[in-house]
Structure formats: structure tokens, C-alpha cells
């Protein structure tokens, strides 16, 4: 390396660092703008899901800011909030890592001057990021993180839309009882496969609690490391114990790998039911094709719920322009709901004072045509008590609504037990 290029490289490095350190002063003065920060895993193992969540937030903001007479959700026709305020989004990438999510929450609140935060998909990121918001007395809207621990912290500024893994576990156990009654399924033993993270382990813990309380016996419990390249030994363990029903908390690509490995091992349980995970991801279901069929799981939304949620279609049309045609799924739609509920609270409070908006969030019930519950209401600690999901089964690539009975698809019939691979 000659002297000239050495000097150049040295100068460039020093100048770059100095510029970076001195850059990024406080945000510019804001006029009639409500800045909201988003924190999602835009890169890393669950990047697809994170990017869809970000697109859902953008969709909802577009609806609230503009005038959309054809969209039947609250505030779609007004064109802004509080007589002319527009929401402006500032996006951040958590990479799915708690420390980065926390640092980004601080940056968004302190440097970008955002008024509230929305995020963060991964429960492990939502935890520390929402603590930052709590200390700063800023609102944190959490769409899809399902760890029940999050709303047990009794935070004042934290609000979560999705059902928790505790709610889902209770619902799954009800499904087992329903199958035993209606189909004479004789399900007695349960196996659990879950990713070894806050989400997976939390779900598995709630599953064990609910199943044991209802008299089922958990015979096998298989954790795995997320992002696994091989699940042979995990599936073999399940096959050896052969539980009647399998509960799964398996995210993204790991879910596809699990199903493929089950096929290789030529084993299926008599029924398999999954938490909000790879099961409900429309891209994964498409990739798996026929192999995804007959598995069951909980969904807050799929395009097959259109008759139950007629308001979604117009919103989804905008959403699809941002996701190259991929429809909403149960997680991403919750993020859109988070924005619309927050917007309603601001409008109702008639002020941008976080304390007043928090009071409204705690005390009101909000219309939510994008949610199965139709309403959103928060309990102390921030859990949406109107949240629930429908248990579906994939049949010929379509999510058929099965449980609860009043929301079931009248033409759909549960296929039980699951057909062995060689008879499909």
C-alpha cells in the first residue's frame, strides 16, 4: 500500500467516524405530524414476518392519514387526526435481537422524537423495548408478540392486541375435548415441539399447564434451536413416543422443515395443532403445498375469514401493494389493528398528551372491524381481553374454520385422524 492511499484511507476512516458521531441531531421541528416509530425484525431469521408487520403498519397509517370512503374501518374517511394531524412513521430494524431492539427504541424516542412505538413481533424484543417506552412515559403498542409474561408486568403504557399463548393453550385443550366428544377421538396423550426461545418455551409451559389441568398427559416435550438445519432427532423422539396430539410452537422456515422431516420419517400424530407460527404463514403453506394439509392451528386472520371480516378486503388490497401480493396473516393484521386503535384513542382523547391517550386506552372499548372479536378492550397490564383466534385446519391449501362452533365454516368438516403420508 503506498503512502498516498494509506493517507487517503486513514483520512476517509477518521472523517467517516467524525461525521457519523456528529451527525443526527434532534429531529426537525414538527408541525401537525404525529411521529410513530416501528421496530420489527426486518432482517434475520423471521425477516419475512417482520417486513409484513411493517407493511401492515404502513397500510393502516395510509388509511388513517388519507380519505378512503371505500374502507370500512374507523377514521378511514377523515383524512388525519385531531383536525389535520398526519401520522409519520420512522422505521427501525431489531434484527430479532433484544439488545438491538432496545437500542433502537431509545434512538426512536430520544433522537427521532417519536410520540409512540409499535412493535416488535419477537416477544423477547418487545420486552426490553417496551420497558424503554415505559420509562419515557410513551405508549408502546404491541401487535403480535404472544408471550403472556409481557402483560403480566403491569406496565402502564404497554398495550398488546394479539391473544396470548395462555389463551391459545386453553383454546387448544378445548379443541381436544371437542374432538373427543364429537369424533370419539379418544385423545389422551400430548407431545409438544417448540423453539427454545421466550416464545416457544412460554407457549410450551402454558400448554403443559392447560393440558394437565384438563386431565391430558404430556408424554413428550421436544425443544429445538430456532434456525435449525436438521430436525431428524426431534421428530424421531416424537415418533418414538407417538403422542395422540402434537402441539407445535415452530416459527417460519423451521415449521416447513418440521413437516418435511415428519414426511421423511413417515410419521404423523393423530392430530397436530400449532400456535401462531409457520402454520399460519401463507408463504410457508404455499411452499409446503399438499404436505401442509390436515395440520391444525390458530388463526387471527386468513383470506378464508373474508365472510367473517368483510372490512378486511379493502384494507388488504392496499396491503398487497406493499407485499407483492401476499395477503394479511394473523400476525401482520394485528399490527394494523394496533395503529387503528391508537388513532381512535388519540381522536377520542382529543389531545396528544400521552397520559390522556393512555387513560382512554385503558377505559374505552374500541371498534375493530379487522379483529375477530369486533372490539378491542384492554385489561390492566395491557392485554386485549377481546382477542381470540379461530382454530383451523388446512385442507387443499385452504384454512377451514373449525372451532369455536359458532364461527366455524358450515361446510367444513374436520379430518381426523390425520391421514398417513402414504395415503394422501
Amino acid at each position: 500500500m503506498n503512502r498516498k492511499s494509506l493517507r487517503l484511507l486513514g483520512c476517509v476512516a477518521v472523517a467517516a467516524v467524525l461525521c457519523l458521531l456528529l451527525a443526527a441531531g434532534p429531529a426537525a421541528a414538527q408541525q401537525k405530524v404525529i411521529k410513530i416509530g416501528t421496530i420489527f425484525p426486518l432482517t434475520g431469521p423471521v425477516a419475512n414476518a417482520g417486513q409484513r408487520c411493517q407493511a401492515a403498519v404502513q397500510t393502516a397509517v395510509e388509511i388513517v392519514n388519507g380519505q378512503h370512503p371505500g374502507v370500512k374501518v374507523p377514521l378511514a374517511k377523515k383524512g388525519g387526526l385531531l383536525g389535520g394531524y398526519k401520522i409519520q412513521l420512522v422505521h427501525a430494524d431489531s434484527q430479532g435481537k433484544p439488545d438491538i431492539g432496545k437500542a433502537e427504541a431509545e434512538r426512536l424516542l430520544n433522537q427521532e422524537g417519536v410520540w409512540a412505538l409499535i412493535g416488535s413481533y419477537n416477544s423477547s424484543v418487545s420486552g426490553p423495548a417496551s420497558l424503554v417506552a415505559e420509562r419515557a412515559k410513551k405508549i408502546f403498542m404491541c401487535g403480535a408478540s404472544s408471550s403472556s409474561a409481557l402483560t403480566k408486568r403491569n406496565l402502564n403504557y404497554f398495550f398488546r392486541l394479539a391473544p396470548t399463548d395462555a389463551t391459545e393453550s386453553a383454546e387448544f385443550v378445548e379443541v381436544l375435548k371437542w374432538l373427543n366428544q364429537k369424533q370419539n377421538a379418544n385423545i389422551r396423550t400430548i407431545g409438544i415441539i417448540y423453539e427454545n426461545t421466550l416464545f416457544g418455551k412460554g407457549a410450551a409451559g402454558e400448554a403443559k399447564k392447560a393440558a394437565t389441568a384438563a386431565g391430558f398427559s404430556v408424554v413428550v416435550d421436544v425443544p429445538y434451536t430456532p434456525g435449525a438445519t436438521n430436525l431428524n432427532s426431534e421428530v424421531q423422539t416424537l415418533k418414538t413416543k407417538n403422542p395422540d396430539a402434537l402441539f407445535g410452537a415452530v416459527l417460519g422456515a423451521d415449521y416447513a422443515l418440521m413437516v418435511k422431516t415428519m414426511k421423511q420419517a413417515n410419521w404423523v400424530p393423530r392430530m397436530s395443532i400449532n400456535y401462531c407460527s409457520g402454520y399460519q404463514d401463507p408463504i410457508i403453506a404455499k411452499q409446503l403445498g399438499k404436505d401442509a394439509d390436515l395440520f391444525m392451528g390458530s388463526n387471527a386472520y386468513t383470506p378464508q375469514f373474508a365472510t367473517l371480516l368483510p372490512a378486511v378486503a379493502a384494507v388488504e388490497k392496499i396491503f398487497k401493494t406493499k407485499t407483492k401480493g401476499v395477503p394479511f396473516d394473523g400476525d401482520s393484521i394485528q399490527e394494523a389493528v394496533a395503529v387503528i386503535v391508537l388513532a381512535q384513542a388519540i381522536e377520542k382523547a382529543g389531545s396528544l398528551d400521552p397520559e390522556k391517550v393512555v387513560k382512554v386506552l385503558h377505559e374505552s372499548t374500541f371498534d375493530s372491524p379487522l379483529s375477530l372479536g369486533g372490539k378491542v378492550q384492554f385489561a390492566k397490564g395491557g392485554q386485549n381481553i377481546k382477542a381470540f383466534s379461530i382454530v383451523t385446519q388446512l385442507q387443499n391449501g385452504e384454512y377451514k374454520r373449525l372451532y369455536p362452533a359458532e364461527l366455524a365454516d358450515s361446510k367444513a368438516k374436520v379430518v381426523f385422524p390425520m391421514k398417513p403420508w402414504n395415503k394422501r
Partner: protein
Amino acid sequence: MVNPTKNRIFGKDAVWLLFIAVVAVLPLVPGFADNSFRMHVFILILLYASMAQAWNILGGYCGQVSFGHSVFFGIGAYGAAMALVTYGTAPWPGILIGMAAAGLVAVVISYPCFKLSGHYFAIATFAIVEIFFRMFQVWDWIGGAIGLDYPVIEEGLWNLVWYSKTGYYYFALILFVIVFGVVRWLEGHRFGYYMKAVREGQETAESLGVNSAMVKLTAMAISAVLTALCGVFFVQYNLRVDPSMVISLDMAMKFVLITILGGAGTLLGPLAGAAVLIPLQEYTRAFWGGLGGGIDLIIFGLIIILMVIKQPAGIVGIFQGIRQRIAKARGKGGAEIGTP
């Protein structure tokens, strides 16, 4: 006759003392502490420089490349978190236990590993990270995969938790002074020369009477204890720990990357590496992370590749090169570009 003590204080070390003094008064400069993201970047520079310097003892001065330091980092972090979250006390007893445990674990696992030579030692340390990661994930006593979340607690020295960045800034600075101070002391101590002798040629060192096994084990223990102290800071700063946050290959690589980028086996290297790498990492993410698609990570990666291709001796190598040329131009002959 030159007085070596006087030389130490007023010579090379004067620059360091001045540097620490400047860093210490920075938060008092009007406008500096107002920008909490800038404070965050400075805090991370001090933390990662300390982590890299702790690794540098073994990897740089003693020449034993370890990819397993995230294990000791994790043990330190868990020590403080267990005391605070599980037992509801101040983190202090946990810090001491964590540091002692890290040192002990380091000695126990490296004793057989040091029998491996060259690249095999590095490969073995890779495996150790994986073993500890899995073990911590299924170990329910320490919270397993769910990890430990800090409750909302009072700020201050007792809990080692602050609501503002200034407290953490000075905590990081103290950490930095401790770690760099130990390495500076080692540099001038007989043990420092033993380490360098082992690095340059184990057989030669042994033939001169250096007990290379003991030197390597001691270097590993010192390095692990200081790394655990850095882990304490990490958990107190992030208020949460789970195995994938600390005991990961990703974290292990950061120790190595920062030191190599800055210049391994030099006192300044880890600081130079962290001062360039951390702002790049944080600001590329702040500016471009929200765009999605990992543009920030691509730019960050490209800059690292360019640095490594253009100057394999690290940032310190660049400055030494410049100094050497200036000295040559004056006809005095220059310092050698010294990296292992």
C-alpha cells in the same frame, strides 16, 4: 539516566491519561449528553473496546486465538442477572461469583484445549460456545431459553442501573480504565514478555525456561475474568439476558473482529477497532436499517472487507505505517509494524 517511572507517567501513558480525562469530561460539554444516541454509541465503543482488549490478552499478546470468549461474557452477565432477578439482591455478589466462575471455567476448559496446537485450539473453542449455549438454554435454574428480565428497579450504584445514559457512560469508562489498565500493566510486566515469547514460538520460549502451559492458562484466566466483567456491563445496560444474546458465535466473533480490525497484540488496537466498527455498525443501522432488506448490514460488511484487504495489520498498522514513513523521511528509521 532515564527514570523509568517518570517515563511511564509522562511518556506514553500521558497520552492515555489525557485521553481518559477528555472522555471523562465529555458529558459535561454542553450539548454532548443531550443526544442519547451519541452517548449510546460512545458507551458501546468503551464496552466493545474493553471486551476486545480482554480478548487481546489471550488472542493478541499470547497468540492463542479463541472463539469461545462469549461463554465467559455470558457467565459474567448471568452472575449479575441471577443476583438481581432470581435472588432480588444487588448485583454485586453475583458479579464477583460470575467473574470467579468465568475464570474457573476458563482454566478447566482450556487446560485440555491448550494441548491442541495451532488452528485446532481455535476450532475447539468454537465447539465450547455451542456446548455452553445449549446447556444454558435448557438449564431452568438460570431461566433457560426464556432468559432473565429485569424488573423496574431503583437506579443508582447499589443496583448498577441508571435511567439516563450518563450513569452508564461513567460505568463503561471505569470498565475501560480497569481493562486497559490491567493490559498496560501486563505490557510492562515480566508476564507480558512471557506471553509474547509464547506467541512468537512456544518451543523457543520453553527452551528459555518459560512454562508455556502456565503462561497460557494464566493469560486465559485473566482474559476470562475481565471478559466476565464486560458481560456484567452488557446485562446491566440491556436489562435482559438470554443465552442467544450473550453466548452466541455472533458475539464471539465480535471479540475477534474488533481486535483484528484494530490491530491484535497492541494496546491501542482494540480501542481503534471499536472506535471505527461500533459507530459504523450503529449509524449504518440508524440511517438505513429501517429500509429493510439489511442494506445497513451489507454496507457494514463491505467496509470491513475493504479494511481487511487494504490493511491486514489493522488500523494501528495504518498509523504505524504512517509514523514509520515520517521517521524514514527524517532519516531516523521507524518503528516496526508489530502484529502477531
